[in-house]
């Protein structure tokens, strides 16, 4: 469906405003549905806890870590819930 068709159906005349709202709608859709998935990989560094997330991330689908002893398979890891006892380790 073109932007023009959406504008005509919704009765909007302002193109820029319509495009902004369509972008918002896509953001809502990506937040709740799995329409467009992307994958990014980065290295794990010994003693480093904090890792950057991709800037274009809307919602996380899964986090995996490479298992080098099982034929290099990426295996999904679990999310921790609740607070961690150690807030920072200065000598990891």
């Amino acid at each position, binding site marked *: *469906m*073109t*932007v*023009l068709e*959406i*504008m005509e159906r*919704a*009765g909007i005349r302002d193109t820029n405003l*319509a*495009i902004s*709202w*369509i*972008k918002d*709608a*896509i*953001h*809502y*859709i*990506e937040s709740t*549905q799995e*329409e*467009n*998935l*992307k*994958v*990014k*990989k*980065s*290295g*794990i*560094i*010994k*003693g*480093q*806890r*904090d*890792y*950057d997330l*991709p800037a*274009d*991330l*809307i919602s*996380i689908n*899964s*986090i*995996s*870590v*490479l*298992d*080098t*002893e*099982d034929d290099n398979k*990426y295996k*999904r*890891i*679990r*999310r*921790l819930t609740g607070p*961690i006892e150690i807030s920072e*380790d200065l000598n990891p």
Partner: protein
Amino acid sequence: MSYNTSRNYFWKMNGQKLHLYQLRKNALLSPDVNGRIESDDTELVYPDEDINNGLRVEYNAFVKPFVTADPNSLATDSNETTWSNPSLTEASSPEETSHVNLNRMLSLACVCFVQAQNAAKEGNIQLKEYYMREFYKKLADNESNKKKITIAFPSPVSSVR
């Protein structure tokens, strides 16, 4: 060498950062340097090894939100086995002729969302809520379109056959 990573690694979100922890298992009844014995034999530590490209993040993102060709029609459709999807080029500066890179149902949901925002702009909150309900209904319809569920009901013995 990482092993059994699905059991030994955990993640947690902290603001815009991903925190990665590794589960370290210690031998029970082995005293530390002070002679203390811990009753719990596991602890969470920072990753204890380098793994090249070891972290994989799968996530939802904007992927070509506006494209130049219709994403809902096949590029070639000769017969059952000869067909191909259109190659989509992103419209970096979307305009009225650009296509929204969504299927038909989600495009209709977009229409409802735009109507809702327009109603809010005009101060009609009740109408906005109505269109937002329609928006979410279409999202739900889109999800159910991906599933096929068959439900069988046993007919009672006394029913007319």
